Structures are given as structure tokens and as C-alpha cells.
């Protein structure tokens, strides 16, 4: 039959209107010879304008849903803008909020600087996490490891339905820029059930968005609590203890030797650097064409989410009172509930009473702080104010409830 320029299709009264595909199972709607809308054999829809569905979920429309990854655009850095000389011991959380620098040195010589670094050559993003090698390590001991991790609470990953017959896939996307082409890895690790799956990507000298697919896992449910259930681990360096096996490209019980087989090392030359931004984790399986756009949060939303895990020095302005000539009491309340009662570490700083008087805080005396706030008594050097005087000072304490 030739082309029909204009027609009216009348549905019958019993079945309605049907568009029936050939045996491929796909249906396409074209305009000027270009497919604009397609429906695949599983019923997922994608349009050339960017809307798509995966497993029935409408990808770009996620009303009232926050990104699973916190601080994916690397905007928040409450601890420090830069830490040098890292690599000799476990780095924990040095710079950008929520990114743990997990290091086993094992006698290795590799050292690096971690920087919360501004970027201006990638649309939409203004900050990155930069890892810059400062001392090379070309004689890698078997036990060496260095990866950048985001640890995610069990309550925040239930949407993957892991461990159920209806389990959904995982898609990780991240922008990476490096000094050369080098293979690195992103491991997803289910810490509740000791299972993992790893995908490799190759860095380039310009910003490249890598989209990595991980299959659904019907084995092992995530615990529904506020402890770590899923770790997103960006592997930048590893010894043979982690690379001598076969990459776990589908979910399997953890075999350490398989973890990141095939990766290169950020430590192999002092010219090396890796910059990372735009980390996201999506429920479902997406390609570079169908993955939802990165969800940018406002600075306030982003920082509040980070402060569930860490509150920096002088971020809070609680009610404050001199309780003795050498003590001052703070009663902070948090903007958001913290993940767990936080560890408090004093930061020496100065303050002053509202009607005159000044002092310098020196150390903590007592901390009784829960997930919503509490009380901390801080020692001061000497005060020129009066006991019971109200004071004006940010809480000179860091509060850490990280995973």
C-alpha cells in the first residue's frame, strides 16, 4: 500500500484502536523519516525529546524524589577545601562532603592531594573532587587500595527491590576528567549481604559522562535501617589482592580478588589526576540517551542533606551561656535529624558575651548530643564576662555521624 497523507482510522466497538507491530514487538512513530516515539517489546516508551521509561518508571519526572547520591555535584565541602599528603593512611572524609577516601597503604609510596576544585569547562557543574598524584607508586604491594566511596543508608536504597523477584537494575553515571586514558572501576557493594558487582570505564582528557549498568539482584535484601547497605566505590588504585581474579560483572558473593580486575593506577605517574563530578545513581537500566538528567538541588537542600552526616565548625548558632568562669554551655538544635548521635570534636575559637566580655574556647568538657541536638559544655581560657551571661558564638565543634 502506498503512503497515506491523511486518513482517519476508525476503531471498532469491541477492541478500540490498535497499532500492531511486526514480530520485533516494537512500535515506532516517525516524523519526516525520523523516529520520534518508540515503544519497545517490554512496553517502555522513549521519545526523541528525552522522556523515557524503564521498567515502567517515568525517568525524567521524579516529583518530590531526591537524588539517591548526596552531594553528587560536589558543591558542599564543610571540612576542608584541600588536604595534601594523603595516601599514607585511611583518609576517611577529608574534603568534599560524603566522599570517603578509603585507603590501605600497605607500605606503598603513593601520595595525593584531595581538592574541592572549581571547574568551568562542563555545562551545569561548577565544582569537582580532584585527586592529584604527588608521589608515584609503581611497585604496588598486593594489599594496597584506594577508592572514593559514597556509603548509602539502607532506608535510601529500598527502591531497588534488591532480593525480591521484582528486583530492578542499577545505573551509575559520573563525569570524569583525567590526564590520560586509564581504566578505573565503579564497584557497587551490598554490605548487608556481602555481594558486589563492578563495571569498568576509561577516563579521557576531557569531561566524559560514563553511564554504567548493573543488573538487578534477586539475592539478598537491603536492611531497612540507617546503617550502610550500599557502597558506591570508585576504584583508582589497587594491588593484586583486589585485581588478580575475574571482574564481577554480575552480582556475586564478594571475592576480594575479583573486585576491580583490570584497572590502572592513579599513582603510576605524578602527572596523574582524576576529577569527578555529577555522580548519580538511578533505579532501573538506562543508556546514555535515556538516563535522566542530573538532578541539581539548591545549595540549601544539598547542604541540609549533607548535615545528616556531618556539621562543620560554627555552622550552628545555638543558645549559649557562660556557666562558670572557665566554661560555656551550648544547646544546639540541628536543621535536620542526624543519622546517628554524632561524635563531637572541639575547635578552638573565640567568642564574646552579648553585653561585653570575650573568651577563647579551648576544649570540650561534656557532650550529650543526640540525633536532633543536645548540650555541650566547652572549656574556655578566661572570660571577662559574667557567669550566666548570654553569649554570641557559633558552635565551636564539628559533629560527625558519617557512615
Amino acid at each position, binding site marked *: 500500500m502506498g503512503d497515506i497523507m491523511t486518513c482517519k482510522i476508525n476503531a471498532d466497538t469491541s477492541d478500540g484502536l490498535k497499532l500492531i507491530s511486526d514480530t520485533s514487538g516494537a512500535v515506532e512513530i516517525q516524523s519526516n523519516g525520523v523516529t520520534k516515539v518508540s515503544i519497545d517489546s517490554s512496553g517502555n516508551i522513549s521519545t526523541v525529546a528525552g522522556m523515557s521509561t524503564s521498567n515502567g518508571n517515568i525517568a525524567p519526572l521524579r516529583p518530590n524524589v531526591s537524588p539517591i547520591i548526596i552531594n553528587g555535584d560536589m558543591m558542599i565541602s564543610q571540612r576542608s577545601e584541600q588536604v595534601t599528603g594523603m595516601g599514607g593512611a*585511611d583518609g576517611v572524609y577529608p574534603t568534599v562532603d560524603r566522599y570517603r577516601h578509603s585507603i590501605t597503604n600497605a607500605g606503598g609510596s603513593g601520595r595525593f592531594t584531595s581538592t574541592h576544585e572549581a571547574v568551568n569547562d562542563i555545562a551545569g557543574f561548577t565544582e569537582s573532587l580532584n585527586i592529584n598524584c604527588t608521589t608515584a607508586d609503581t611497585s604496588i604491594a598486593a594489599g594496597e587500595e584506594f577508592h572514593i566511596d559514597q556509603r548509602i543508608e539502607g532506608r535510601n536504597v529500598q527502591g531497588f527491590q534488591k532480593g525480591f523477584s521484582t528486583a530492578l537494575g542499577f545505573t551509575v553515571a559520573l563525569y570524569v576528567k583525567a590526564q590520560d586514558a586509564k581504566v578505573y572501576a565503579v564497584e557497587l557493594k551490598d554490605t548487608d549481604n556481602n555481594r558486589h558487582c563492578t563495571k569498568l570505564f576509561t577516563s579521557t582528557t576531557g569531561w566524559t559522562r560514563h553511564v554504567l549498568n548493573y543488573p538487578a539482584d534477586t539475592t539478598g535484601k537491603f536492611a531497612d535501617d540507617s546503617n550502610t547497605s550500599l557502597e558506591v566505590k570508585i576504584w583508582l588504585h589497587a594491588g593484586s589482592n583486589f585485581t588478580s581474579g575475574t571482574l564481577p560483572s554480575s552480582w556475586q558473593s564478594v571475592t576480594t580478588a575479583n573486585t576491580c580486575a583490570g584497572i590502572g593506577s592513579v599513582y603510576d605517574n605524578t602527572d596523574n589526576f582524576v576529577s569527578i563530578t555529577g555522580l548519580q545513581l538511578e533505579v532501573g537500566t538506562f543508556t546514555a540517551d535515556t538516563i535522566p538528567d542530573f538532578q541539581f538541588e539548591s545549595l540549601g537542600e544539598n547542604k541540609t542533606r549533607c548535615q545528616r552526616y556531618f556539621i562543620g565548625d560554627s555552622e550552628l548558632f545555638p543558645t549559649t551561656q557562660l556557666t562558670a568562669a572557665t566554661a560555656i554551655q551550648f544547646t544546639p538544635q540541628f536543621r535536620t535529624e542526624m543519622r*546517628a548521635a554524632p561524635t*563531637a570534636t*572541639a575547635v578552638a575559637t573565640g567568642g564574646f558575651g552579648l553585653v561585653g566580655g570575650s573568651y577563647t574556647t579551648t*576544649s*570540650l568538657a*561534656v557532650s550529650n548530643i*543526640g540525633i536532633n541536638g543536645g548540650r555541650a559544655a566547652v572549656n574556655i581560657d578566661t572570660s571577662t564576662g559574667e557567669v550566666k551571661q548570654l553569649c554570641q558564638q557559633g558552635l565551636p565543634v564539628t559533629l560527625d555521624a558519617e*557512615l
Partner: protein
Amino acid sequence: MEDTRTVNSAQKINDEQGDYVCIKAVINSVEMFVPLDNNNKERALIKTWEDAGNTIAEAD
């Protein structure tokens, strides 16, 4: 990976009423006040340290 930091010392801290409210610990040479919350990672580290035969000192 396991938390490989070193607990240098740990001591109970009581508030003004004499209630045991937190642990004053030195971890990797940094003094910090650790809550009595098993979900806190420093408390978990001190628990591991205790399991290795160490004891949290009584309050002053």
C-alpha cells in the same frame, strides 16, 4: 573496608549530675567526644578496641 584508625585512649565522661553521657576518646591522636550510640562509627571502633581486651577508663 574496616575502620583502621587507632584508639589511643578512652575515658567515661559524666555530666554534672553524675550520669555517664559520652566517651572522651583519643583516636589517631585527635581528642573527640563519642556518644553512647552503637550506630556511631567511633563508638563501633571503640567497641572493637574493647573486644581486643582494652577497657574504657572510669570518669574522673
